[in-house]
């Protein structure tokens, strides 16, 4: 059954809310700025609205339905306890600018969340306010820029490995840095020599992901960090993959100066179809003074909110500025805190171990039929295959991924990282049971056999059993239709 858009079925008169009549005795003070054209947005009565969204939801795949092996995206279980806690009136129904005397619990929550993040990463401080991972990257790089400026330096280069997330170069560019790429070693990791070769007193910092986007731990990271520091530069670590090493290694011990943490990846806040996320940035002692406003300071009298430059300076800080209005993604802090308390130190470590175990179990189950660009070595939380096993089958990485949909699985990450051809990056996460992985492996093995047996049409036409067959993304981009417009006759009128 096709679900219509609300604009096809709703009317401007219909409504699914009952509000009292406005008071006719009150005179408006809108200064002559009343809306002149009637608003043309459809309303639906509550039963119709309910059905519209329930039916639409049923066209989605979700973690709660099955394995979601998107490498680097970390689709893990989202506990409902987190959702329940985030809806406690004391957290959800609190205004960011109500008197601080009325929100000690909220400040405590932020401070506690910050403490867990610092302790578990071995860092000095944390900027809590960034709204998402990429926003955290921006925050981290701003801290680096501010630190250089405070030392009277104006460095212009940032080093970024080829395997980096696209946000890394985008972030550096946004701040006016020139991006210099570091090629990957044959084994998928960064060569310290390649870094050292490019270091100079014009290099502001390096942006490294560790574990990297090939799923490998950068084993020379300590050496690289040392070299970066010696060049007067800072080491930004993309924390997207922190979930592989939590409790096993602390970025602070590796020489990291700043790292954003995607709370949705490591601490299970829901992805929500694309957000909201949260991207707190942990900072080393070298950078902690530059953390942006606002921040919560723990004092003997309890948590204290510092939100002005004056108060921060009095506190000995040199904040570089402000990333966002208000205090950051409080709702996500609550969820992450709930997750951290639930796991505890032991559970967080166990989760990392299980994530790595699951990824290597998938590797072991598939390595003889798919192709491992970097050989049969231990991976961290995700395993990277390339498309060479599909050579001469006529099946592309995309086709292969779409065929997985017909088997009831969400595809893995495709064509990323760019360092290998036809990349397929699989991250099962710690939320999967052995039975789930066994089914996944068996299914993929079966698909590989079918591809090799020449069942090309099955792949080219996939998905066959999804709410939609393959969608034409090229046409969408060529003639973008980004909103609903009335059907033709009316469109003709409106075009007059």
């Amino acid at each position, binding site marked *: 059954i096709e679900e219509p858009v609300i604009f096809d079925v709703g009317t401007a008169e219909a409504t699914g809310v009952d509000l009292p009549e406005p008071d006719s005795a009150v005179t408006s003070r809108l200064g002559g700025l009343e809306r002149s054209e009637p608003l043309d947005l459809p309303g639906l009565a509550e039963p119709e609205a309910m059905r519209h969204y329930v039916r639409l939801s049923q066209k989605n795949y979700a973690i709660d339905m099955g394995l979601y092996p998107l490498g680097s995206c970390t689709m893990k279980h989202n506990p409902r306890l987190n959702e329940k806690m985030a809806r406690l009136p004391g957290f959800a129904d609190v205004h960011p600018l109500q008197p601080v005397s009325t929100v000690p619990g909220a400040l405590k929550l932020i401070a506690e969340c910050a403490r867990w993040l610092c302790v578990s990463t071995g860092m000095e401080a944390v900027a809590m306010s960034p709204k998402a991972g990429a926003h955290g990257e921006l925050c981290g790089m701003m801290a680096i820029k501010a630190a250089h400026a405070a030392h009277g330096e104006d460095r212009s280069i940032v080093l970024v490995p080829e395997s980096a997330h696209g946000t890394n170069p985008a972030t*550096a560019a946004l701040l006016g840095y020139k991006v210099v790429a570091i090629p990957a070693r044959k084994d998928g990791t960064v060569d310290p020599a390649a870094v050292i070769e490019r270091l100079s007193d014009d290099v502001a910092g390096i942006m490294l992901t560790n574990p990297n986007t090939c799923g490998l731990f950068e084993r020379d990271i300590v050496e690289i960090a040392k070299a970066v520091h010696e060049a007067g530069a800072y080491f930004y670590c993309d924390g997207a993959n922190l979930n592989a090493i939590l409790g096993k290694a602390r970025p602070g011990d590796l020489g990291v100066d700043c790292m954003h943490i995607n709370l949705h990846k490591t601490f299970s806040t829901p992805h929500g179809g694309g957000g909201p996320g949260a991207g707190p940035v942990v900072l080393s002692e070298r950078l902690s003074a530059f953390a942006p406003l606002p921040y919560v300071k723990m004092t003997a009298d309890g948590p204290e909110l510092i939100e002005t430059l004056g108060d921060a300076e009095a506190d000995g800080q040199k904040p570089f500025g402000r990333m966002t209005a208000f205090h950051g993604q409080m709702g996500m802090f609550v969820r992450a805190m709930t997750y951290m308390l639930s796991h505890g130190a032991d559970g967080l470590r166990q989760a990392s171990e299980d994530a790595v175990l699951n990824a290597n179990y998938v590797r072991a189950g598939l390595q003889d039929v798919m192709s491992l660009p970097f050989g049969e070595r231990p991976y961290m939380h995700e395993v990277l295959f390339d498309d060479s096993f599909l050579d001469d089958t006529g099946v592309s990485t995309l086709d292969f991924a779409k065929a997985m949909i017909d088997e009831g699985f969400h595809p893995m990450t495709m064509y990323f990282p760019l360092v290998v051809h036809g990349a397929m990056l699989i991250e099962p996460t710690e939320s999967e049971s052995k039975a789930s992985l066994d089914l996944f492996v068996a299914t993929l093995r079966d698909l590989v056999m079918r591809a090799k047996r020449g069942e090309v049409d099955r792949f080219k*036409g996939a998905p066959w059993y999804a709410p939609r067959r393959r969608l034409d993304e090229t046409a969408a981009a060529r003639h973008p239709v*980004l909103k609903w417009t009335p059907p033709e006759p009316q469109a003709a009128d409106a075009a007059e």
Partner: protein
Amino acid sequence: MRYLPLTDTDRADMLQRIGVAAIDDLFVDIPEDVRLKDLVDLPKAAGEMSVERQMSKMAAKNVAAGSVPFFVGAGAYRHHVPATVDHLIQRSEFLTAYTPYQPEISQGTLQTLFEFQTQVAGLTGMDVANASMYDGSTATAEAVLMAHRLTRRKKAVLSGGLHPQYREVVRNLSDMAGDDLVCLAPDPAGTEAILDEIDNDTSCVVVQTPSFYGQLTDLTAIAEKAHAHKALLIAVVTEIVSLGALQPPGAMGADIVVAEGQSIGNSLNFGGPYVGLFATRQNFVRQMPGRLAGLTTDAEGRRGYVLTLSTREQHIRREKATSNICTNSGLCALAFTIHMTLLGAAGLKRLAMLNHQSAVKLADALAGVPGVEVLNESFFNEFTIRTPKPASDVIEALAEKDVLGGVPVSRLEPDDDDLANLIVVAATEINSDDDRQAYAEALTEVLA
């Protein structure tokens, strides 16, 4: 641990299958001297009941807005959200889905985003809207960057009516990117001479409507002057409900409209997550940051939706992307679009009028308190009052009487003594006559 399905037996079997003796054999790439034996200084795993108690204890220390007469706004507003909204956004299929990169199994998310974009474009009076931003403040900063790209100029002019924290966010990004910025002085009554600041170097003028102080201003003249100098007008709306009653920025000549969408469908959440709205003209679409859902067809010719124009984005263009943003505020946007669908035009209009009337009644009530002056002649659901005492003291004293009476301007503008006695006060449909009366009485006592 309840979230971890592997049993110890599973783990042993799996290690054997992998061909290693122990789990640490998979962590060999971590240099041994930095490999942790344990996470010290943090407690162990806790059961659900224990966690719930710890969290509830923290939550209980805060004064929930719903428990007192509540008049705090200044960029975040307490409205009634239908129970259906929160129910629907918690459906597994919405809550636990990823970015809809596989459109064939993500039509639910994609169609709701397409509907959201249409609603935002309609509300703001613009041609197109994106699938949402982090929040209103970061959307404002992105709008300034977009204007710089479009005009190839680097100077933004910020109205003194802009939310001070929004200004700081823009300032921070401008400073860091090496752009120019002109920030006008705080402007409670809407009397600033912003037209004089627009020249041929100006990339954009950023004006908030209603202003941070609640003031309403017709943006038409500013748009005309800006356009005459080939600059863009960026309109900022922090109370999106206002567009149920007010002329949309698009109708007043805005080139980009950014807004905080929290008011529709979303809770206060102590400041986040919220949902930034971003709309612009059709011809600017390829410089617009953020995600976009677009209409297309599938292999059988059926209507379907995909993420589109992603060539603007960082995962394709890397350092040449329109923005480093690679997410939206999906679930908050979903809450927005569901609430908006329940309201419809008729409901939103009525909601807006109820808000305005609530504020008018409050303004009259507070104007009757000895020594209190209402600064704005026209406003929507928020206005600024001047009191004879420092605003921060007044607000604290009111809080002790269980009235949350607004935001002292000095909290956001600590360095301007002229603003020390100003309070930004908001009233919405949630406020009853009793609430308003309680405020007026408490304020009278506090000022006595």
